[in-house]
């Protein structure tokens, strides 16, 4: 896969996919293995989530800024019809896990699960939807490349 075969947007999608997987992978593993159990777990999870979110924003800004600086002409190009179509289709595919995930979370609420379980379930749904969206968009980019 040559660098020149990808548009700026496809490169940013690869960055988002890798950063999301690494940061949220670390978040879920770390919060289950290293955070204190008991009532303080929820607050600690919240802090870790904030730390992870800021980490994602900083990491993506630096990497995407670096990619844009290497090829500013590409970075300033507006998305064309093919890229917009890929974006819409990817977002559409992510709708299905979002709906299933929301119903699962509603079921958890009515089943009396605690707030920590609900927090991780909601976060899991959000991350899964993002991965489906970005993953399907990357698949569409590669299929048409």
């Amino acid at each position: 896969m040559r660098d020149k075969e990808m548009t700026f947007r496809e490169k940013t999608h690869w960055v988002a996919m890798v950063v999301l997987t690494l940061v949220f992978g670390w978040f879920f593993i770390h919060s289950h293995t290293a955070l204190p159990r008991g009532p303080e777990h929820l607050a600690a999870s919240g802090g870790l989530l904030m730390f992870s979110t800021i980490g994602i924003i900083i990491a993506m800004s630096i990497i995407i800024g670096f990619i844009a600086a290497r090829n500013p002409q590409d970075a300033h190009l507006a998305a064309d019809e093919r890229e917009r179509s890929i974006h819409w289709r990817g977002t559409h595919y992510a709708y299905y896990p979002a709906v299933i995930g929301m119903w699962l979370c509603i079921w958890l609420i009515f089943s009396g699960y605690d707030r920590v379980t609900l927090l991780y379930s909601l976060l899991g749904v959000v991350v899964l939807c993002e991965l489906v969206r970005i993953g399907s968009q990357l698949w569409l980019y590669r299929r048409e490349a």
Partner: protein
Amino acid sequence: MALPFTNAIRTLRFLTGEMTQAELGERVGVTRQTIAAIEQGKYSPSLEVAFRIALVFGKPLDAVFIWQEPPAP
């Protein structure tokens, strides 16, 4: 899924002084990658982009995009 039409973009680019995909993309208003996808038959462009490509080469639409499936009975 294969598209029901082919195109003569590669030939027309050659005939217009080996115009690059990037140059054609710039004149049409799409990325080089989109021109490559159209040329390889992997992406079906909108009617507007198809007309813009034909206009760049100064050809009618059906000289650039050639329908291949037989007409419905």
